[in-house]
Protein backbone atom coordinates (compact mmCIF):
# COMPACT_ATOMS: atom_id res chain seq x y z
CA UNK A 1 0.00 0.00 0.00
CA UNK A 2 1.11 3.51 -0.58
CA UNK A 3 1.58 5.68 2.45
CA UNK A 4 -1.51 7.81 2.98
CA UNK A 5 -0.53 9.63 6.14
CA UNK A 6 1.31 12.87 5.76
CA UNK A 7 3.02 13.71 9.04
CA UNK A 8 3.73 17.32 8.11
CA UNK A 9 1.36 19.86 9.66
CA UNK A 10 -1.17 21.56 7.39
CA UNK A 11 -0.15 25.03 6.44
CA UNK A 12 -3.52 26.22 5.19
CA UNK A 13 -7.10 25.78 6.40
CA UNK A 14 -9.12 22.94 5.01
CA UNK A 15 -11.43 23.92 2.15
CA UNK A 16 -14.98 24.56 3.27
CA UNK A 17 -16.37 21.49 1.51
CA UNK A 18 -14.34 19.20 3.74
CA UNK A 19 -16.45 20.38 6.67
CA UNK A 20 -19.50 18.90 4.94
CA UNK A 21 -18.25 15.32 4.98
CA UNK A 22 -20.78 12.85 6.37
CA UNK A 23 -20.84 9.13 7.14
CA UNK A 24 -22.05 6.44 4.81
CA UNK A 25 -25.45 5.32 6.01
CA UNK A 26 -26.11 1.87 7.33
CA UNK A 27 -28.51 0.05 5.02
CA UNK A 28 -30.57 -2.95 5.94
CA UNK A 29 -29.01 -6.06 4.52
CA UNK A 30 -25.53 -4.91 5.36
CA UNK A 31 -23.98 -7.40 7.65
CA UNK A 32 -20.75 -5.71 8.48
CA UNK A 33 -17.80 -7.81 7.56
CA UNK A 34 -19.58 -10.94 6.37
CA UNK A 35 -17.17 -13.02 4.37
CA UNK A 36 -17.70 -14.61 1.00
CA UNK A 37 -15.60 -15.72 -1.89
CA UNK A 38 -16.23 -15.11 -5.53
CA UNK A 39 -14.70 -16.66 -8.61
CA UNK A 40 -15.65 -16.68 -12.28
CA UNK A 41 -17.72 -19.42 -13.80
CA UNK A 42 -15.38 -20.53 -16.60
CA UNK A 43 -18.17 -20.77 -19.17
CA UNK A 44 -20.76 -18.15 -18.26
CA UNK A 45 -18.12 -15.75 -16.91
CA UNK A 46 -20.50 -14.76 -14.12
CA UNK A 47 -19.46 -14.55 -10.48
CA UNK A 48 -19.89 -17.66 -8.35
CA UNK A 49 -20.30 -16.74 -4.67
CA UNK A 50 -19.44 -19.21 -1.96
CA UNK A 51 -19.21 -19.30 1.82
CA UNK A 52 -15.49 -19.44 2.65
CA UNK A 53 -16.03 -21.92 5.47
CA UNK A 54 -18.70 -24.27 4.17
CA UNK A 55 -17.79 -23.73 0.48
CA UNK A 56 -21.51 -23.77 -0.20
CA UNK A 57 -22.86 -21.47 -2.92
CA UNK A 58 -24.59 -18.33 -1.74
CA UNK A 59 -26.76 -16.05 -3.77
CA UNK A 60 -25.11 -12.96 -5.21
CA UNK A 61 -26.33 -9.92 -3.38
CA UNK A 62 -27.20 -11.91 -0.26
CA UNK A 63 -23.71 -12.00 1.11
CA UNK A 64 -23.54 -8.87 3.10
CA UNK A 65 -20.69 -6.80 1.90
CA UNK A 66 -20.82 -7.01 -1.85
CA UNK A 67 -19.53 -3.74 -3.10
CA UNK A 68 -22.22 -3.21 -5.62
CA UNK A 69 -25.19 -5.33 -4.80
CA UNK A 70 -28.35 -3.99 -3.33
CA UNK A 71 -27.70 -0.33 -3.66
CA UNK A 72 -25.40 1.88 -5.66
CA UNK A 73 -23.96 3.35 -2.51
CA UNK A 74 -22.88 0.48 -0.38
CA UNK A 75 -21.08 1.77 2.69
CA UNK A 76 -17.91 0.15 3.98
CA UNK A 77 -19.45 -1.41 7.05
CA UNK A 78 -21.53 0.35 9.64
CA UNK A 79 -19.40 3.12 11.04
CA UNK A 80 -17.10 3.72 8.15
CA UNK A 81 -14.13 2.33 10.01
CA UNK A 82 -13.32 -0.35 7.47
CA UNK A 83 -9.66 -0.55 6.57
CA UNK A 84 -10.24 -0.24 2.88
CA UNK A 85 -11.77 2.70 1.12
CA UNK A 86 -15.33 2.47 -0.08
CA UNK A 87 -14.85 1.31 -3.62
CA UNK A 88 -14.86 4.19 -5.97
CA UNK A 89 -17.58 6.74 -5.79
CA UNK A 90 -21.14 6.65 -4.59
CA UNK A 91 -23.21 5.49 -7.54
CA UNK A 92 -20.21 5.78 -9.77
CA UNK A 93 -17.55 3.26 -9.03
CA UNK A 94 -15.55 3.78 -12.12
CA UNK A 95 -12.45 2.90 -13.91
CA UNK A 96 -10.38 6.01 -13.84
CA UNK A 97 -7.89 7.29 -11.43
CA UNK A 98 -8.37 10.97 -11.88
CA UNK A 99 -5.50 12.96 -13.18
Amino acid sequence: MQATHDPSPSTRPRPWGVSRMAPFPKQSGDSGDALYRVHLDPVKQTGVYTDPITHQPIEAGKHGTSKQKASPTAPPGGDGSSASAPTGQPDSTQDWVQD
Partner: protein
Amino acid sequence: MTAPVLAVACLDDPTTDLVLDELHGRGIPVVRFDPGADFPDEIALSAHFDGSGMTGSIDTPTHRLDLSGVRAVYWRQPTPYRPSPDLDTSSASWAAEQARYGLGGVLAALPGTFYLNHPFRNRDAEYKPLQLATAAACGLAIPRTLITNRQDSVRRFASRSDGTVFKPLWSTPFKTDNGKWRTIWAHPIDPEEVDGTVTGAAHLFQEQVKKAADVRVTMVGDHVFPVRIDGSPALDWRLHYDSLSYQLIEATPAVVKSMRAYLDRLGLVFGAFDFCLFGDEWVFLECNPNGQWAWFDDPIPQQIAGAIADVLIRAKGES
Protein backbone atom coordinates in the same frame (compact mmCIF):
# COMPACT_ATOMS: atom_id res chain seq x y z
CA MET B 1 -18.05 -19.16 -34.53
CA THR B 2 -20.00 -16.46 -32.76
CA ALA B 3 -17.92 -13.44 -31.83
CA PRO B 4 -17.82 -12.84 -28.09
CA VAL B 5 -18.86 -9.89 -26.03
CA LEU B 6 -16.01 -8.59 -23.88
CA ALA B 7 -17.11 -7.66 -20.35
CA VAL B 8 -14.71 -5.36 -18.51
CA ALA B 9 -15.80 -5.44 -14.90
CA CYS B 10 -14.60 -6.13 -11.40
CA LEU B 11 -15.10 -9.69 -10.20
CA ASP B 12 -17.59 -8.89 -7.47
CA ASP B 13 -20.30 -7.27 -9.55
CA PRO B 14 -23.74 -8.91 -9.59
CA THR B 15 -24.90 -6.19 -11.99
CA THR B 16 -22.56 -7.52 -14.65
CA ASP B 17 -23.76 -11.03 -13.86
CA LEU B 18 -27.35 -10.07 -14.71
CA VAL B 19 -26.27 -8.99 -18.18
CA LEU B 20 -24.01 -11.99 -18.73
CA ASP B 21 -26.81 -14.34 -17.71
CA GLU B 22 -28.92 -12.75 -20.44
CA LEU B 23 -26.15 -13.14 -23.00
CA HIS B 24 -25.54 -16.74 -21.99
CA GLY B 25 -29.23 -17.49 -22.33
CA ARG B 26 -29.12 -16.19 -25.88
CA GLY B 27 -26.08 -18.23 -26.83
CA ILE B 28 -23.63 -15.32 -26.97
CA PRO B 29 -20.14 -16.15 -25.66
CA VAL B 30 -18.54 -13.77 -23.20
CA VAL B 31 -14.96 -13.09 -22.16
CA ARG B 32 -14.69 -11.22 -18.88
CA PHE B 33 -11.80 -9.82 -16.94
CA ASP B 34 -10.83 -6.97 -14.64
CA PRO B 35 -7.74 -5.26 -16.09
CA GLY B 36 -6.76 -3.33 -12.95
CA ALA B 37 -6.93 -6.45 -10.78
CA ASP B 38 -6.01 -9.25 -13.19
CA PHE B 39 -3.14 -7.69 -15.13
CA PRO B 40 -0.34 -8.63 -15.35
CA ASP B 41 -0.50 -11.74 -13.17
CA GLU B 42 -3.43 -13.44 -14.88
CA ILE B 43 -3.61 -11.65 -18.22
CA ALA B 44 -1.25 -12.05 -21.16
CA LEU B 45 -1.40 -9.27 -23.74
CA SER B 46 0.00 -9.21 -27.26
CA ALA B 47 -1.21 -6.41 -29.49
CA HIS B 48 0.38 -5.91 -32.92
CA PHE B 49 0.15 -2.82 -35.08
CA ASP B 50 0.99 -2.47 -38.72
CA GLY B 51 -0.46 -0.90 -41.83
CA SER B 52 -3.68 -2.85 -41.41
CA GLY B 53 -4.25 -1.65 -37.87
CA MET B 54 -4.33 -3.60 -34.62
CA THR B 55 -4.44 -7.36 -34.23
CA GLY B 56 -3.45 -9.70 -31.45
CA SER B 57 -4.88 -11.42 -28.43
CA ILE B 58 -5.50 -11.28 -24.72
CA ASP B 59 -5.34 -14.49 -22.73
CA THR B 60 -7.32 -14.74 -19.52
CA PRO B 61 -7.20 -17.77 -17.20
CA THR B 62 -10.15 -19.26 -19.11
CA HIS B 63 -10.29 -17.67 -22.56
CA ARG B 64 -8.34 -16.29 -25.48
CA LEU B 65 -9.74 -13.06 -26.87
CA ASP B 66 -8.98 -12.22 -30.50
CA LEU B 67 -8.60 -8.45 -30.49
CA SER B 68 -10.01 -8.18 -34.00
CA GLY B 69 -12.97 -10.44 -33.28
CA VAL B 70 -14.87 -8.73 -30.46
CA ARG B 71 -18.60 -8.34 -31.07
CA ALA B 72 -19.07 -5.60 -28.49
CA VAL B 73 -17.63 -4.35 -25.23
CA TYR B 74 -19.70 -4.11 -22.07
CA TRP B 75 -17.70 -1.67 -19.96
CA ARG B 76 -18.92 -1.87 -16.39
CA GLN B 77 -16.94 -0.78 -13.38
CA PRO B 78 -13.49 -2.37 -13.39
CA THR B 79 -10.94 -1.91 -10.64
CA PRO B 80 -8.66 1.10 -11.17
CA TYR B 81 -5.08 0.38 -12.17
CA ARG B 82 -3.19 0.49 -8.90
CA PRO B 83 0.49 0.17 -8.01
CA SER B 84 1.38 -3.32 -6.86
CA PRO B 85 2.19 -3.62 -3.15
CA ASP B 86 4.81 -6.23 -4.08
CA LEU B 87 7.11 -3.77 -5.88
CA ASP B 88 9.06 -0.77 -4.75
CA THR B 89 6.93 2.38 -4.91
CA SER B 90 8.49 3.94 -7.98
CA SER B 91 8.49 0.72 -10.02
CA ALA B 92 4.93 -0.05 -8.96
CA SER B 93 3.69 3.38 -10.01
CA TRP B 94 5.49 3.12 -13.32
CA ALA B 95 4.06 -0.34 -14.02
CA ALA B 96 0.53 0.78 -13.14
CA GLU B 97 0.71 3.73 -15.53
CA GLN B 98 2.14 1.54 -18.30
CA ALA B 99 -0.74 -0.89 -17.72
CA ARG B 100 -3.32 1.86 -17.93
CA TYR B 101 -1.96 3.33 -21.13
CA GLY B 102 -0.97 -0.04 -22.60
CA LEU B 103 -3.70 -2.55 -21.76
CA GLY B 104 -6.23 0.22 -21.11
CA GLY B 105 -5.27 1.83 -24.39
CA VAL B 106 -5.65 -1.43 -26.33
CA LEU B 107 -9.05 -2.06 -24.77
CA ALA B 108 -10.17 1.41 -25.82
CA ALA B 109 -8.99 0.92 -29.42
CA LEU B 110 -10.57 -2.38 -30.48
CA PRO B 111 -11.13 -1.92 -34.22
CA GLY B 112 -14.69 -1.34 -35.33
CA THR B 113 -16.06 -2.42 -31.97
CA PHE B 114 -19.23 -1.18 -30.31
CA TYR B 115 -18.83 -0.02 -26.71
CA LEU B 116 -21.47 0.32 -24.02
CA ASN B 117 -19.98 2.73 -23.04
CA HIS B 118 -16.57 3.61 -24.36
CA PRO B 119 -14.35 4.22 -21.30
CA PHE B 120 -13.04 7.53 -22.59
CA ARG B 121 -16.60 8.75 -23.19
CA ASN B 122 -17.47 7.69 -19.65
CA ARG B 123 -14.55 9.65 -18.31
CA ASP B 124 -15.55 12.80 -20.16
CA ALA B 125 -19.19 12.47 -19.21
CA GLU B 126 -18.42 12.24 -15.49
CA TYR B 127 -17.66 15.95 -15.35
CA LYS B 128 -20.61 17.88 -13.94
CA PRO B 129 -19.88 21.12 -15.81
CA LEU B 130 -20.04 19.22 -19.10
CA GLN B 131 -23.19 17.43 -17.93
CA LEU B 132 -25.00 20.65 -17.07
CA ALA B 133 -23.92 22.48 -20.22
CA THR B 134 -24.86 19.52 -22.41
CA ALA B 135 -28.23 19.07 -20.73
CA ALA B 136 -29.08 22.71 -21.26
CA ALA B 137 -27.94 22.54 -24.88
CA CYS B 138 -30.21 19.53 -25.41
CA GLY B 139 -33.27 21.34 -24.11
CA LEU B 140 -33.43 19.94 -20.58
CA ALA B 141 -34.31 22.20 -17.67
CA ILE B 142 -31.46 22.51 -15.17
CA PRO B 143 -31.27 24.26 -11.78
CA ARG B 144 -29.24 27.45 -11.51
CA THR B 145 -25.78 26.27 -10.55
CA LEU B 146 -22.57 27.91 -9.39
CA ILE B 147 -19.07 26.44 -9.35
CA THR B 148 -16.73 28.74 -7.52
CA ASN B 149 -14.06 29.35 -4.92
CA ARG B 150 -15.31 32.88 -4.18
CA GLN B 151 -17.20 33.54 -0.97
CA ASP B 152 -18.89 36.65 -2.38
CA SER B 153 -20.14 34.67 -5.38
CA VAL B 154 -21.72 32.11 -3.06
CA ARG B 155 -23.50 34.81 -1.06
CA ARG B 156 -24.83 36.55 -4.16
CA PHE B 157 -25.92 33.25 -5.71
CA ALA B 158 -27.70 32.15 -2.55
CA SER B 159 -29.46 35.49 -2.12
CA ARG B 160 -31.27 34.87 -5.40
CA SER B 161 -32.33 31.32 -4.50
CA ASP B 162 -35.08 29.98 -2.32
CA GLY B 163 -32.78 27.37 -0.89
CA THR B 164 -29.23 26.39 -1.84
CA VAL B 165 -27.74 22.92 -2.12
CA PHE B 166 -24.09 21.90 -1.88
CA LYS B 167 -22.92 18.83 -3.74
CA PRO B 168 -19.50 17.50 -4.69
CA LEU B 169 -18.07 17.89 -8.17
CA TRP B 170 -16.75 14.37 -7.85
CA SER B 171 -17.51 11.92 -5.06
CA THR B 172 -14.32 10.67 -3.53
CA PRO B 173 -14.11 8.74 -0.28
CA PHE B 174 -12.50 10.87 2.42
CA LYS B 175 -10.65 9.42 5.39
CA THR B 176 -10.87 11.41 8.60
CA ASP B 177 -8.03 11.89 11.06
CA ASN B 178 -9.42 9.06 13.16
CA GLY B 179 -9.72 6.68 10.26
CA LYS B 180 -13.42 6.94 9.39
CA TRP B 181 -14.62 7.00 5.80
CA ARG B 182 -16.78 9.94 4.83
CA THR B 183 -18.19 11.48 1.71
CA ILE B 184 -20.37 14.41 0.71
CA TRP B 185 -24.07 13.95 0.08
CA ALA B 186 -26.09 16.60 -1.65
CA HIS B 187 -27.69 18.66 1.12
CA PRO B 188 -29.22 22.09 1.71
CA ILE B 189 -26.94 24.66 3.29
CA ASP B 190 -27.25 27.95 5.07
CA PRO B 191 -25.16 30.33 2.95
CA GLU B 192 -24.11 32.12 6.13
CA GLU B 193 -22.16 29.00 7.01
CA VAL B 194 -19.96 29.32 3.94
CA ASP B 195 -16.83 31.06 5.21
CA GLY B 196 -13.61 32.21 3.61
CA THR B 197 -12.23 28.69 3.42
CA VAL B 198 -14.42 28.21 0.35
CA THR B 199 -11.50 29.79 -1.51
CA GLY B 200 -9.47 26.60 -0.95
CA ALA B 201 -11.22 24.42 -3.53
CA ALA B 202 -13.81 24.42 -6.30
CA HIS B 203 -17.30 24.01 -4.83
CA LEU B 204 -20.63 23.40 -6.55
CA PHE B 205 -23.75 25.16 -5.28
CA GLN B 206 -27.15 24.67 -6.82
CA GLU B 207 -30.56 26.20 -6.45
CA GLN B 208 -32.74 23.81 -4.45
CA VAL B 209 -35.68 22.58 -6.48
CA LYS B 210 -38.82 22.12 -4.39
CA LYS B 211 -39.33 18.69 -5.82
CA ALA B 212 -42.32 16.39 -5.53
CA ALA B 213 -40.23 13.30 -6.23
CA ASP B 214 -37.07 12.10 -7.95
CA VAL B 215 -36.83 10.18 -11.19
CA ARG B 216 -33.93 7.98 -12.27
CA VAL B 217 -34.08 7.30 -16.00
CA THR B 218 -31.88 4.49 -17.25
CA MET B 219 -31.36 4.85 -20.99
CA VAL B 220 -29.99 1.92 -22.94
CA GLY B 221 -29.82 2.78 -26.62
CA ASP B 222 -33.46 3.45 -27.48
CA HIS B 223 -34.77 1.67 -24.38
CA VAL B 224 -36.01 4.07 -21.72
CA PHE B 225 -36.64 3.08 -18.09
CA PRO B 226 -37.93 6.05 -16.07
CA VAL B 227 -38.30 5.07 -12.42
CA ARG B 228 -40.04 7.44 -10.03
CA ILE B 229 -38.45 7.41 -6.58
CA ASP B 230 -40.64 8.36 -3.64
CA GLY B 231 -40.21 8.30 0.10
CA SER B 232 -36.80 9.87 0.61
CA PRO B 233 -36.72 11.78 3.90
CA ALA B 234 -33.55 13.59 2.81
CA LEU B 235 -32.72 15.64 -0.24
CA ASP B 236 -30.27 12.98 -1.43
CA TRP B 237 -32.24 9.78 -1.87
CA ARG B 238 -29.09 7.65 -1.78
CA LEU B 239 -29.01 8.12 1.99
CA HIS B 240 -32.23 6.21 2.64
CA TYR B 241 -32.66 3.23 0.35
CA ASP B 242 -34.70 1.46 2.97
CA SER B 243 -37.38 4.16 2.76
CA LEU B 244 -37.66 4.36 -1.01
CA SER B 245 -40.33 3.05 -3.33
CA TYR B 246 -39.95 2.70 -7.07
CA GLN B 247 -42.47 2.98 -9.86
CA LEU B 248 -41.92 2.71 -13.59
CA ILE B 249 -43.47 5.76 -15.22
CA GLU B 250 -43.52 7.38 -18.65
CA ALA B 251 -41.19 10.13 -19.70
CA THR B 252 -42.59 12.76 -22.03
CA PRO B 253 -41.49 12.54 -25.67
CA ALA B 254 -39.70 15.87 -25.30
CA VAL B 255 -37.64 14.64 -22.35
CA VAL B 256 -36.83 11.38 -24.14
CA LYS B 257 -35.74 13.31 -27.21
CA SER B 258 -33.50 15.54 -25.11
CA MET B 259 -31.94 12.59 -23.29
CA ARG B 260 -31.31 10.90 -26.62
CA ALA B 261 -29.62 14.03 -27.89
CA TYR B 262 -27.57 14.24 -24.68
CA LEU B 263 -26.24 10.70 -25.09
CA ASP B 264 -25.48 11.25 -28.76
CA ARG B 265 -23.64 14.47 -28.05
CA LEU B 266 -21.42 12.76 -25.47
CA GLY B 267 -20.95 9.56 -27.47
CA LEU B 268 -22.80 7.42 -24.93
CA VAL B 269 -25.09 4.44 -25.44
CA PHE B 270 -26.01 4.09 -21.76
CA GLY B 271 -26.81 6.79 -19.24
CA ALA B 272 -28.41 6.98 -15.80
CA PHE B 273 -30.18 10.34 -15.63
CA ASP B 274 -31.29 11.89 -12.38
CA PHE B 275 -34.20 14.30 -12.50
CA CYS B 276 -36.41 15.87 -9.91
CA LEU B 277 -40.06 16.55 -10.56
CA PHE B 278 -41.17 20.15 -10.10
CA GLY B 279 -44.83 20.35 -11.07
CA ASP B 280 -44.96 18.98 -14.60
CA GLU B 281 -41.36 19.85 -15.23
CA TRP B 282 -38.49 17.35 -15.23
CA VAL B 283 -35.41 19.15 -13.92
CA PHE B 284 -32.10 17.55 -14.85
CA LEU B 285 -29.66 17.08 -12.00
CA GLU B 286 -26.99 14.86 -13.48
CA CYS B 287 -26.33 11.90 -15.75
CA ASN B 288 -24.05 9.14 -14.58
CA PRO B 289 -22.65 7.43 -17.67
CA ASN B 290 -21.96 4.26 -15.70
CA GLY B 291 -24.71 4.38 -13.10
CA GLN B 292 -26.15 1.53 -11.10
CA TRP B 293 -29.54 -0.04 -11.78
CA ALA B 294 -29.55 -3.52 -10.27
CA TRP B 295 -30.92 -2.35 -6.92
CA PHE B 296 -34.36 -1.47 -8.29
CA ASP B 297 -37.26 -3.74 -7.41
CA ASP B 298 -37.96 -6.65 -9.74
CA PRO B 299 -38.63 -6.84 -12.63
CA ILE B 300 -36.86 -3.59 -13.54
CA PRO B 301 -33.29 -4.95 -13.29
CA GLN B 302 -34.14 -7.91 -15.51
CA GLN B 303 -35.68 -5.56 -18.06
CA ILE B 304 -32.62 -3.31 -18.09
CA ALA B 305 -30.28 -6.31 -18.31
CA GLY B 306 -32.32 -7.57 -21.25
CA ALA B 307 -32.10 -4.20 -22.97
CA ILE B 308 -28.32 -4.06 -22.49
CA ALA B 309 -28.02 -7.59 -23.91
CA ASP B 310 -30.19 -6.57 -26.88
CA VAL B 311 -27.99 -3.60 -27.66
CA LEU B 312 -24.75 -5.58 -27.28
CA ILE B 313 -26.01 -8.38 -29.52
CA ARG B 314 -27.29 -6.09 -32.24
CA ALA B 315 -24.13 -4.03 -32.12
CA LYS B 316 -22.43 -3.31 -35.38
CA GLY B 317 -19.37 -1.16 -35.63
CA GLU B 318 -18.30 1.71 -33.52
CA SER B 319 -20.54 3.26 -30.91
